């Protein structure tokens, strides 16, 4: 008797051979994604791979492979296969071996489900705060709360390799609670489902610019970044922080990363050509072209990664069940073998 198409599909999906195919295919596709640089603009692929290969890559989304609908569909197929297998096996014997194996397999669905949850409902933002600066989390789409960077600090090894980056944070009125905590790499702040990570750092300079017409502006410029003074004339200001200027040698060299002899190198750039530069201490000013620049001060800024994501707890539960199921399954198998 011929089976109905749907039934045929479910029988095929529940079979071990399709499970093996799915595992190997997902493995091969994942591997492929590491060989093609991910997440670049389409032009990048046209230039590096030539027109045809470049087009194939972008049309098949091989440049965003792990988010491509057909890759996600493969993962969904894996879940379906596991599920159908589980249903098939539940109808048969019920032993510790089968039960633990089921837990192990279903845990994989939980992990992928958690990942899907994070993708759909997770939310994160990168926030850069100078020492003393404060922001409202609501502006970044989180529950209301006032986040303040009280202090940022870098500890160094004797050879000036960074030992640890840490930020002293205050989080006020987040879901009715106040937090005051120092975070560091590997030690995020946890407030309910909200986590705040130490993710980057840098120097921030306070500079006042004064144009020829007397108009003045106060700007906060991160180290090694640029500020457009006049877009129409392609005129911009660049600033580089030199924490420990070596005054015994010509050129601009820093003896250490510590702010022992801090200077700021400012440059006025027109059409990518430097038309004037100067080395300033805090409080000093300089005339470059038609502009007068004053260095009012400088401070650290801390790059914080703020994240709210409940999916990760599903994922971790899945991890736990996967491991527990696996251990029980193989311990049981071992006992069965010893007994035989």
């Amino acid at each position: 008797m011929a089976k109905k198409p749907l039934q045929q599909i479910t029988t095929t999906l529940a079979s071990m051979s399709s499970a093996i195919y799915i595992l190997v295919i997902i493995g091969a596709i994942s591997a492929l994604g590491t060989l093609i640089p991910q997440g670049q603009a389409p032009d990048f692929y046209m230039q590096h791979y030539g027109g045809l290969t470049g087009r194939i890559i972008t049309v098949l989304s091989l440049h965003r492979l792990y988010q491509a609908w057909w890759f996600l569909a493969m993962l969904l197929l894996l879940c379906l296969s596991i599920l159908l297998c589980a249903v098939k096996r539940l109808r048969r014997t019920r032993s510790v071996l089968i039960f633990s194996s089921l837990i192990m397999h279903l845990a994989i669905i939980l992990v992928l489900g958690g990942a899907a949850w994070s993708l759909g409902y997770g939310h994160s933002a990168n926030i850069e705060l100078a020492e003393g600066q404060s922001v409202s989390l609501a502006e970044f789409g989180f529950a209301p709360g006032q986040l303040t960077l009280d202090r940022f600090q870098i500890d160094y090894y004797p050879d000036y390799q960074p030992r640890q980056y840490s930020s002293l944070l205050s989080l006020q009125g987040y879901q009715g609670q106040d937090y005051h905590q120092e975070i560091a790499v590997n030690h995020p702040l946890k407030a309910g489902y909200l986590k705040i990570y130490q993710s980057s750092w840098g120097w921030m300079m306070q500079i006042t610019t004064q144009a020829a017409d007397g108009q003045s502006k106060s700007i906060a410029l991160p180290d090694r970044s640029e500020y457009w003074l006049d877009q129409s004339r392609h005129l911009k200001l660049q600033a580089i922080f030199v924490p420990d200027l070596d005054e015994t040698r010509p050129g601009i060299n820093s003896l250490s990363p510590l702010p022992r002899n801090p200077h700021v190198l400012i440059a006025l750039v027109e059409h990518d050509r430097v038309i004037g530069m100067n080395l300033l201490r805090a409080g000093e000013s300089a005339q470059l072209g038609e502009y007068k620049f004053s260095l009012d001060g400088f401070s650290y800024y801390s790059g914080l990664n703020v994240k709210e994501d409940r999916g990760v707890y599903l994922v971790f539960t899945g991890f736990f069940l996967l491991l527990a199921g696996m251990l029980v399954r193989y311990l049981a198998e071992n006992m069965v073998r010893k007994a035989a």
Partner: protein
Amino acid sequence: MENLFTDLVFILLLLLTAVNLFRLWTERDLSKISQLILWLTLAAIVAVIVVRTAAAGRVPFANLYEFALLFSCGILVFALWVRQGLDSSRLDLSVAVLLLIIIAISTTLPSELGPLMPALQSTWLHAHVATAVIAYGCFALAACLGVVALSRSQQTAPGLDEIENRIYRMVVLGFIFLTIVIITGAVWAEEVWGNWWSWDPKETWSLVTWLIYAAYLHARRSYGWKGRKSAWMVIIGFVIVMFTLFGVSILLPGLHSYL
């Protein structure tokens, strides 16, 4: 001091290779001598690790060079365990050649004694690296046993079935530990970067190895894939492990490039 012991390891491995090549031709039982050299090599590697730990003032878990040392140490421990009860010349020989390859690769890696960078200062590092040594050690021995199975005729005792059983047990142990490696890595990444999975090349290739060994376990169970097929599977699996370990770090740098 460290270089002295590293040279010693190299010389012992050459000796081990020579002795076991000789064993392929001779009737004499040199198994005990081979075993002694394995123990001496293990002692020399442990000495390298101890000297390095003392010099750096921290556990040698910081870079790929140090992992290669731990990996070699793990392979030797598993080899001494697995070879029991086997006529072992081919196993010892494949272990010796594999270790020579790993040592050769490690000499091309940067081996400066740096301090631990902030991202590595975590207890998860210890769990992650220690379980990786066990997982990869198991897969290495499974592959060496695979070579033994392929190079052996049906008649030699113990039979292929016994070797096949040992391969299966090594893969199961390796698979459980690889699962722990991936899980500890993910939990750690969540703690340090706020992202438990980011498809970085090292992560992705560890997933690929996991999927390959899962496919092996399924195939073995349902199609009774044993003997030569299973031997080839574990050898291919281990080639992918080696790529994950060295190839990815050298050719496909990502977040993990320090390890």
